[in-house]
């Protein structure tokens, strides 16, 4: 996928003025956010599990080489073909070759962010293979020629009306008089169309939420069952997974699974959690005849020796974006690459370079909610701050920006002067603006007042109020 991060500011402006998108995003607080809070409240051990989850992943990452070797040994013993891909291009080539060897005409796909990261669909399509996304949200995005805007709800930016219009436009066999006013009718229509694809597919490609070293298994989690139809009806099952997905045992994966659905959708457990080990067995009447796993690095191994090792704990639940004021305002597409929201603001610059994604770590209010809700306790704001430092050291931000920072720093390092200056400014702004309560325009603050009023101070600074408070004076 070609990044469009360099136009982040423009992307964000467009998103803020897109009424369809704003309507679609308005449901986040009462939907995924409220559901997560309720699920967390029902499980008193939730916070303990976050520590456990973090420790499992930290332990695994510290021994990643050995767990990957063990995973490979076990998977191979069960009949899997394990492939290693250092880069996106290599992963595409491996999968393309598997499809060619299987003489594949139709490929169905379960949801996989890694396949987005490596740009798999266009590579397969260029080779003349029909690729069908089967997760309903991914399918909606695919037929529109778009990319997912959320890692677990790829079509969260679309409204029901848009879906109906797309189906009427693109589903050739859909009679014009078919009523499609209810979500259930739309789902029924998609189910029918995709069922035929499941049955016709030669190769089924899924991602993996986890790989288990103990057994050589890959794990997928869905609510629709699309991943299961993808992998059990096609002749060949291909799993594409990044190297940090491995965990040691079934006990470890069980603990992390207790966090995943609750953090993602607020469900007690996802409807389908599926553990796959090798191809079908000699007596099995169904299941794939061949099973391939492609292990992708694509820059992750380089993060291990850095502060960004912690981001490799991510289990892609999406809680950070659901709780992010920036994501809630601009949606996922504005972030310009595969991973949106706070995790994207950390992961994208780590994988493709700060130089190419400098706006992302700056697109944060540092409110800290992402870290508070992260099931793997990834310190996302701290890592964004690291990226900002890197950007600064590369001479990143504009001259004006640097000058502003420099001026502020000069004052901040002189507390007495700082207090006098802020006291004067606060008093002046208070005197001019107290009557109206806010400024619509202000010199040097056009960046603020273009979008919202600047509230007028009430006359005294925080430092003054604090000093009075400590002295016991009435406020």
């Amino acid at each position, binding site marked *: 996928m070609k990044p469009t991060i360099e136009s982040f500011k423009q992307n964000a402006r467009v998103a803020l003025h897109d009424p369809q998108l704003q309507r679609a995003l308005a449901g986040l607080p009462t939907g995924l956010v409220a559901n997560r809070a309720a699920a967390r409240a029902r499980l008193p051990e939730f916070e303990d599990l976050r520590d456990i989850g973090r420790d499992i992943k930290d332990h695994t990452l510290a021994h990643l080489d050995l767990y990957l070797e063990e995973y490979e040994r076990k998977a191979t013993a069960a009949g899997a073909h394990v492939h290693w891909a250092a880069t996106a291009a290599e992963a595409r080539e491996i999968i393309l070759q598997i499809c060619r060897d299987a003489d594949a005409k139709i490929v169905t796909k379960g949801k996989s962010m890694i396949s987005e990261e490596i740009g798999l669909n266009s590579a397969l399509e260029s080779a003349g293979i029909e690729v069908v996304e089967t997760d309903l949200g991914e399918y*909606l995005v695919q037929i529109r020629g778009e990319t997912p805007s959320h890692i677990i*709800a790829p079509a969260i930016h679309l409204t029901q009306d848009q879906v109906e219009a797309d189906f009427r436009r693109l589903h050739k066999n859909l009679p014009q008089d078919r009523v499609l006013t209810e979500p259930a009718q739309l789902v029924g229509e998609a189910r029918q169309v995709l069922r035929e694809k499941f049955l016709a597919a030669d190769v089924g490609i899924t991602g993996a939420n986890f790989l288990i070293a103990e057994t050589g298994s890959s794990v997928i989690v869905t*609510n629709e*069952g699309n991943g299961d139809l993808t992998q059990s009806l096609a002749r060949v099952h291909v799993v594409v997974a990044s190297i940090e997905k491995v965990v040691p045992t079934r006990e470890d994966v069980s603990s992390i699974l207790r966090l995943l659905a609750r953090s993602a959708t607020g469900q007690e457990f996802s409807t389908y959690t599926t553990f796959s080990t090798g191809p079908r067995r000699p007596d099995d009447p169904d299941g794939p005849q061949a099973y391939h796993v492609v292990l992708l690095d694509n820059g992750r191994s380089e993060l291990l020796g850095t502060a960004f090792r912690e981001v490799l704990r991510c289990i892609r639940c999406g809680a950070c974006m659901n709780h992010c004021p920036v994501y809630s305002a601009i949606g996922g597409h504005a972030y310009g690459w595969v991973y949106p929201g706070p995790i994207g603001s950390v992961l994208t610059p780590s994988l493709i370079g700060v130089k190419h994604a400098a706006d992302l770590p700056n697109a944060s209010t540092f409110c800290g909610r992402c870290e508070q809700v992260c099931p793997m306790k990834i310190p996302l704001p701290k890592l964004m701050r690291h990226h900002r430092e890197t950007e600064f050291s590369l001479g990143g931000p504009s001259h004006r920006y640097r000058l502003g920072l420099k001026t502020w720093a000069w004052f901040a390092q002189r507390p007495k002067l700082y207090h006098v200056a802020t006291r004067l400014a606060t008093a002046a702004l208070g005197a001019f603006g107290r009557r109206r309560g806010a400024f619509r325009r202000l010199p040097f603050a056009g960046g603020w007042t273009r979008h919202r009023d600047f509230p007028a101070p009430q006359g005294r600074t925080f430092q003054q109020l604090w000093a009075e408070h400590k002295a016991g004076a009435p406020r």
Partner: protein
Amino acid sequence: MTSSRDAILSKIRSGLGITRDDPDRRTIVERRLSSRTRHLTPARVKEKSAEELLKLFRGFLERESATVVEVDKKQDIPAAIADYLRSNNLPARIRVGGDAMLTQLPWGSQPHLEMLLGRAQPSDEVGLTHAAAAVAETGTLAFASGPDNPVTLNFLPETHIVVVEERDLVPSYEDAWESIRARFGSEAMPRTVNFISGPSRTGDIGGRLVMGAHGPRRMCVIVVRNSDPGP
């Protein structure tokens, strides 16, 4: 491909600051893999009676819009299935795998039920499978694929009927893994293990929940109570 493998592993080792083969690290990993340490059992299933676990299991499944039916003995299963199909206006034709418990039930008591054997076919409307375990902590059923219970039966038909025995009801996921280990060997797995917690669903259109996205639209779980003396 071998070269990418070696390159990735060597980059990982250099990132971790490992310069030589360290037997201590291997010992740590081997110990972790063989000890299978359990981390935490949720209080909701700790030291609970069989009755309490069943109530919890049932409650979660019903919340996820599954139907749960309890029968006192296996012989009652065919009648319970016939009842469910009739009351939901569903066809009396059922696809089932080679599972000995299921195939040996007294189907003759329900002569109008037609039984089809084998993996699921696209035209099948009702699938019947036997769960290897039931997990109380979230109302989750665990299935092991194979000739007895082909994996497609869990997903292709619109209606999924599940039989599970109360003696296979366990508190946690980890307990379900112990059952699977006892059956398949300590590190071996069947091709597919499915953990299923209700009928298929999606929220992808306008954020509204719709049942029957790709898998079954409805699910009926028949629990055989412990009172059954068994064969």
